[in-house]
């Protein structure tokens, strides 16, 4: 019983190599984001897009290699909560920006 809990199929907790792969990817993505901003090689909007994409990919890397999220059936409820929350946060952030931007336009505060 305790054996099953401490060493399940090897998926739910990582190995040394998976942590190191995740860490190396995270370092590369972080360095790339800093590099893009510091080098000023892209236009401002291009830079913003680039760092947004890099951050998105790095979040996925962390979720997979550090938080050990996966598609296994034992993680169904975790994933369900997660995607509900992501959807909620997207509505929250985009909705807030939309409403406040609209308000600012109508109040001519800019």
């Amino acid at each position, binding site marked *: 019983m305790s054996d*099953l809990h401490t060493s399940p199929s090897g998926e739910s907790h990582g190995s040394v190599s998976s942590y190191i792969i995740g860490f190396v990817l995270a370092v590369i993505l972080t360095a790339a984001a800093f590099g893009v901003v510091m080098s000023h090689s892209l236009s401002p909007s291009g830079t913003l897009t680039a760092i947004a994409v890099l951050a998105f990919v790095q979040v996925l890397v962390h979720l997979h290699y550090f938080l050990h999220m996966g598609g296994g*059936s034992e993680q169904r409820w975790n994933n369900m909560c997660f995607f509900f929350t992501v959807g909620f946060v997207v509505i929250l*952030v985009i909705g807030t920006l939309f409403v406040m931007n609209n308000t600012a336009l109508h109040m001519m505060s800019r």
Partner: protein
Amino acid sequence: MAHDTTVQTAGHDEHHHESPVVFGFWVYLMTDCIIFGTLFAVFAVLRNQFNGGPSGHELFEFSGLGLETALLLVSSITYGFGMIAAHKNEISKVIMWLGVTFLLGLGFVGLEVNEFAHMIHEGAGPDRSAFLSAFFTLVSTHGLHVTCGLIWIVTLMVQLMGTTEIPERMMNKLTCLSLFWHFLDIVWICVFTYVYLASMI
């Protein structure tokens, strides 16, 4: 069920399922995610409301930000090594890795407090402009979470000292803290991208 398992436990049709304690903690983290989402939305709305005060471009520095990011990123992998040691029941290694993680986290909080003190000293405190109010609320909420994580790490280190094996209850605590710590690193990715780097373009 796609997979059948051998252990028979009463009333559970999903084996290999992590402990309900860990799942409950996961649900808490999701609510925490909504808190941070709200604060990011606030920051996104107020990010250009400087009220004649300093902008992020004038305030933020690459060196301090890079060091903070590096400390938190390295602390993520050291905690991961601690979890691997915990699964092998190597308690002295677990305590050692938790200690390293604690020091890295402490360095992060120290740098952040130093940065805040410096900004407030220069008159760029949370009362200067809407941008700075939103900045301090968001970043210090993250810093407060890291501080709570540090207290939690010390608590678990003390509880682990002198024990010879890690019971399931302790393993659950370590797993919850693992989720918490890695979650904070994900929040920091969003902070350094959308708060710092986006202001420094």
